């Protein structure tokens, strides 16, 4: 059940939306797409779903083309949330689940389970337009997972939710992954991807700039971070060999260095200048990698 994208390219007229994207997502994996606005994430998802035709390349799932015969196995949460405002939650979710091949009775009992899980069982007979935006998102999420898809595509699933609901949804996503669902999701929140995905792809202007497993990406990035908390001024460290960046923090500084080998020299340099409360060598964050690869244009 591997999802394969081979040299996928999409052009809108002369505009290149996705350029030569090749990725492979193994079964039961959680795969993250990162990128700013207009990076090509949504276009990629739409091609995977078959809503848009790719200009070049191949997309296959389980060695088959994805078309409408596979739609019962795929769940989709679009970036632009969309439900019928005038229909009751029950009516429309059962309708959407039936379109994905689910039996009416089964859909209803699944729906009850999910509403219970999200602590909103009373929404069953409410119209969507009566719900708050955050609660509409819960309903939208349920509509993507109700028919128990094997491949779940979530486009910005956590945007616009309060922290409590983000946790609620995250938990649900992780549980689905544990149950064997292959999940592809996009976000521009690094911490979500860092926390949940084994594999990821950073896209910029339609091109995949970084792609691979989280560990490997961090390893191959080479650069490390050092956090130092001290009582004296540390800003002179910017001139120290191997230091790429220095950021002043309230309690000290955060450094980015060329490689682990420079850490020891810096430690030696700092020690003796005063009291050092903290010295920590850290893995680079996804955020650092993203900024490095995509450039300062983001956020």
């Amino acid at each position, binding site marked *: 059940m591997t999802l394969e994208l081979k040299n996928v390219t999409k*052009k*809108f*007229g002369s505009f290149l939306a996705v350029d030569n994207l090749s990725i492979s997502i193994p079964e039961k994996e959680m795969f993250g797409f990162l990128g700013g606005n207009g990076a090509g994430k949504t276009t990629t998802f*739409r091609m995977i*779903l*078959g*809503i*848009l*035709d790719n*200009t070049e390349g191949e997309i296959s799932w389980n060695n088959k083309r994805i078309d*409408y*015969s596979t*739609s*019962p196995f*795929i769940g*989709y949460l*679009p970036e*632009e*949330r*969309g*439900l*019928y*405002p005038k*229909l009751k939650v029950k*009516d*429309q979710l059962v*309708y*959407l689940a*039936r*379109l*994905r*091949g689910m039996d009416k009775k089964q859909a209803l009992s699944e729906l009850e389970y999910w509403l219970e899980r999200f602590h909103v069982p009373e929404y069953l007979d409410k119209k969507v337009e009566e719900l708050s935006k955050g609660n509409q998102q819960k309903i939208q999420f349920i*509509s993507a997972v109700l028919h128990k898809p094997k491949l779940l595509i979530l486009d910005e699933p956590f945007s616009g939710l309060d922290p409590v609901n983000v946790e609620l949804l995250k938990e649900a996503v992780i549980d689905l992954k544990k149950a064997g669902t292959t999940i592809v999701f996009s976000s521009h929140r690094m911490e979500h991807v860092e926390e949940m995905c084994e594999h990821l792809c950073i896209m910029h202007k339609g091109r995949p700039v970084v792609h691979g497993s989280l560990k490997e990406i961090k390893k191959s990035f080479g650069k490390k971070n050092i956090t130092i908390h001290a009582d004296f001024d540390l800003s002179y460290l910017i001139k120290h060999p191997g230091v790429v960046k220095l950021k002043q923090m309230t309690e000290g500084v955060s450094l980015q260095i060329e490689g682990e080998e420079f850490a020891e020299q810096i430690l030696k340099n700092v020690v003796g200048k005063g009291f050092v409360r903290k010295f920590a060598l850290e893995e680079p964050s996804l955020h650092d990698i993203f900024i490095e690869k995509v450039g300062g244009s983001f956020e």
Partner: protein
Amino acid sequence: MVLLSNFWIILFHTYISKLKTKSFIITTAITIALIVALANLTSIIDVFDKDENTKVAVVDQSDELFAPLEKITASSNKKLELKLFDGSEEEGKQLVKDGEYEGLLVLASNKEKLPEAHYYSMNIADSSVSADLLANIQMIKSSLAAAQLNLTSEQLTKLNEPVSFQSTALEENAKTAEELDQARGLVYVLLFLIYFAVIMYANMIAMEVATEKSSRVMEILISSVSPIKHMFAKILGVGLLSLTQLVLLLGVGYYFLTNNKNLGSMEGFLGFGDVPISTIIYAAVFFILGYFLYATLAAFLGSLVSRIEDVQQMITPMTLLVVAGFMIAMFGLGAPDNKFVAATSYIPFFTPMLMFMRVGMLNLPLWEPIVGIMILAASIAILAVFGARIYKGGVLMYGKSNSYKDIKKALQLTKKD
């Protein structure tokens, strides 16, 4: 299997959710109430009219005209009651103002001893009383004039006898005048039906598509079902709804037409007496084809707008097409063999109304309606293929602009290059 059933799920979901809407129930109920009221119009008018006779005061200055007028009026207008009034004209007018009498008629003889009359009433909008009086006085005048000329009553009858005038069509199988009148009534009703149905239901489809698009539920729908299938399921779902409504309305209408004794004459007027079965079949065929043509057009126009507010603007040209077709058809009812009407009946957007009008009114050779049906079917197929591509691109397109330029953009979205 999943693919086939999806079509039906959308079709019935559209049908049932539309059937349950308040607006649908209310429009249907109001229309049925109107039909019932219309069918019982004569009885309803009777209820209001039964209470009292219309009383008219008559001042007879000639002293000899009242008696014959009263006699004629009593025999021809049962509801009109004439009362000889002894007072002056002014007193009579005052009584009219007080509401005692409907009007005051002043009769006099002129120099030639022929009657003259002046009618006073609160308003002259209700012309039926004065018209009845005029007709009756005219009769008295005729007989008086005849008496002066020493004409016998036979001679008078001869004078008043209408000319015998008959028209007969020489073409074989041509419709007789009577048949034409019958056909005109029926075609008129059916044309209205086609016109309203096309405007109403095409509108409904465009709204339906635009609602799904503007609420962005469309993206989920077309990731489950192909846009083409979605479009046709929608069109058929609304089509089924239109049939439900029509069957209801026609059923109620038919029940009252056949069960109301007062309507014997109206039935004849509308041509329901003995309709040729072919006309009914043509009506059904052209209705269905016309519906599909405009529904397909409406669906793809609806897929181009991003906001519901823009739907009306987008489908205005389509509505104008329907109106134009209807206008030409109305003109054609009076002159069905007009060359212009014949030519325009081959333009696909006009065919449903015009070809049907012609086939109902004239004796067309069989190939004409068949060519019309074929042109319609071909246009529907072309529009469906083209429309489906626009639909597929259009439903993914969001933005401020909603012009016909978007058609090109939508086509580009679905292109593979």
